[in-house]
């Protein structure tokens, strides 16, 4: 009886455990197509990059990137589910498969590439860390900030850069940490800290949130390189390619002068580069498991890089950030995408 029991249960147990072993993550592309929408991890609220309006509609550069991805993969830019994440939550959400792509002003670093099991698919915004102070303090340089209380978002590269900067300059500081960038702005506004530090783009966005934006100034120092871009999980090269090339297509489109407005007309252009870009000719989407017109959908429904930049953070927005480093390589910036060929 005992033997029989063991005979029966043990193999069954082994079988189930073998069967349940390491449930291989399936193809992300297939999962996305199956559920019919893209799960996109975004910031909880950062004007210009990702923030919901009073009707719950999301907008911003990071949001537009996800819309472009959805347009390419599903043919509809609106088939995106936005999942707001704090800096602390973001990587776990991607690792665990809760989201398909993380498009949340995240800095590309070696640690994040090498030990988190994640891959950066490119750079969508070249940023650098800066400081914002109250005008009353009369501070003109970050070198005068010895002993200041600094509001900062926890779990960011800013936290590390800040420590490095103050240490190399032999200064002391008090880190006052908050979970969200909104929290840092509130802390700064209430006077809990003298300085707010973050990526420069965020500083301009957060300044708009202050009760009196005119009272705060952004100091000239930029203390770090912050290349921000979308991330995916490691181990799914097809999905990695799709995300990487969705971004490249938007940048290439700007370079070739293709916009959402003229995309239809451009399909009949004689320029071979434009033909390849819009999938009329050339490699199209087959190698990545996408439709032939995937890149056309990205541009038609969302626009090229310049359109996305200008409407969200540039001239067409309250932030009025200049292109600077984020201009095309041919126009004095460092934005450069591999060719569609």
């Amino acid at each position: 009886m005992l033997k029989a029991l063991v005979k029966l249960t043990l193999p069954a147990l082994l079988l189930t455990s073998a069967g349940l072993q390491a449930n291989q993550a399936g193809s992300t592309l297939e999962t996305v197509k199956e559920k019919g929408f893209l799960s996109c991890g975004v910031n909880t609220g950062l004007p210009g990059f990702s923030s919901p309006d009073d009707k719950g509609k999301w907008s911003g550069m990071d949001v537009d990137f996800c819309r472009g991805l959805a347009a390419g993969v599903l043919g509809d830019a609106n088939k995106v589910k936005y999942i707001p994440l704090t800096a602390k939550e973001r990587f776990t959400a991607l690792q665990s498969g809760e989201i398909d792509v993380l498009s949340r002003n995240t800095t590309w670093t070696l640690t994040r590439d090498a030990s988190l099991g994640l891959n950066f698919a490119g750079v969508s915004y070249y940023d650098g860390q800066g400081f914002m102070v109250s005008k009353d303090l009369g501070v003109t340089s970050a070198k005068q900030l010895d002993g200041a209380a600094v509001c900062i978002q926890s779990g960011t590269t800013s936290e590390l850069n800040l420590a490095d900067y103050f240490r190399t300059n032999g200064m002391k500081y008090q880190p006052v940490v908050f979970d969200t960038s909104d929290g840092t702005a509130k802390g700064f506004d209430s006077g809990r800290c003298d300085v707010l530090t973050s990526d420069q783009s965020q500083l301009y966005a957060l300044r708009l949130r202050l009760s009196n934006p005119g009272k705060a100034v952004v100091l000239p120092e930029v203390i770090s390189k912050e290349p921000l871009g979308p991330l995916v999980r490691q181990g799914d090269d097809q999905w990695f390619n799709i995300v990487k090339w969705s971004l490249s297509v938007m940048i290439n489109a700007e370079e070739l002068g293709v916009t959402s407005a003229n995309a239809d007309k451009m399909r009949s252009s004689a320029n071979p580069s434009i033909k390849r870009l819009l999938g009329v000719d050339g490699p199209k989407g087959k190698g990545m498991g996408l439709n032939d017109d995937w890149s056309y959908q990205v541009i038609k429904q969302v626009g090229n890089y310049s359109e996305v930049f200008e409407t969200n953070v540039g001239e067409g927005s309250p932030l009025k950030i200049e292109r600077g480093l984020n201009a095309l390589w041919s126009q004095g910036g460092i934005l450069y995408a591999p060719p569609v060929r």
Partner: protein
Amino acid sequence: MLLRLWRDSAWRAVLFQVLLISLVLLFGGWIVDNTLTNLENRGISTGFDFLSQSAGFGIIQSLIEYNESLSFGHTFVVGLLNTLLVSALGIVFATLLGFGMGVARLSSNWLLAKVAAVYVEVFRNIPLLLQIFFWYFAVLSVLPSPRQSLSLFDIFFLNIRGVFLPEPVFDAGGMIAVWAFVVAAVLTVGLVLLNKRQRKNTGRPLPFLKATGALLLIGLPVVTFWLANGSLHWDVPHLKGFGFKGGIELLPELLALWFALTVYTAAFIAEVVRSGIESVSKGQKEAAAALGLRPGRVMNLVVIPQAMRVIIPPLTNQYLNLIKNSSLATAIGYPDLVSVFAGTTLNQTGQAIEVIAMTMAVYLTISLTVSMLMNMYNRWVALVER
């Protein structure tokens, strides 16, 4: 043979227990193995090597020497000590306030009893997280900037950056006096215990106990201070640069958390104390009063000692709750274990499983330790049959 064993109910019981335990172990093993395999497949690094890597981020409050170049292991200790600090402060003050409120609620003074009742009902029925936010944002929005600090005699300061107190600084001779005080305290405790035994054995207390104790506690440090030619000066906080320098600084995050934990837990402790006191039968009080004891002594000598037996076990629960609730610190950025270690460190290293496991182990250890100590205390005050 097997069949005989099977029919033996004792053996059968053993068999089923062995089966159940191996099932549980197999399941646990499967979970661990599966996790490791999945992490490996996804290219996420595992292990505890990260503890020796340098942390690279600053922490606003640390009870030990800490700077950015120290390791993630240090951040663990810093977070742990900050958790212990706020828990200890919370427990001491919640106990005092709770006992006060519990006794007040039973007071024959109508106003006092009602105030205590309102206090208990209000604070135990509002979620703790909201109370923490309330105290934090109340502090932040009401208090002035460092330059317009509220001050008391120009040595205590209160502003949006927290409370600043003067710090006593002793030289070598002064330190001897501090140690002398510690020795005096130990001697006094010994004296009290001796007195207790004396009273138990002979029914009479030691003569001049209070005077001797006071003389020891005050006299010994003063005499050594004078003999060692010690000196003491106060490091008074002063405005410099962006804020105050010198003295002892209590962060607004610490104050808000401490306040909220104290007020919230004290409401529960007050109820525990009230129920404990009410569990002592009325006859005891009447008998004590009939013997001519004054109300204060009735409370101290008759009611409280008996009530303690009822109070201790639920009081332990409240202490454990307070310690665990201190993890809400992360909501307002007080650098406790959850905020520093399970928050920032986790995020910088990405090693969620190791970090969370360590954090859980810490809370488990603290809680079990407190529980053990309280059980020891409980045995001590428990009714001893003679």
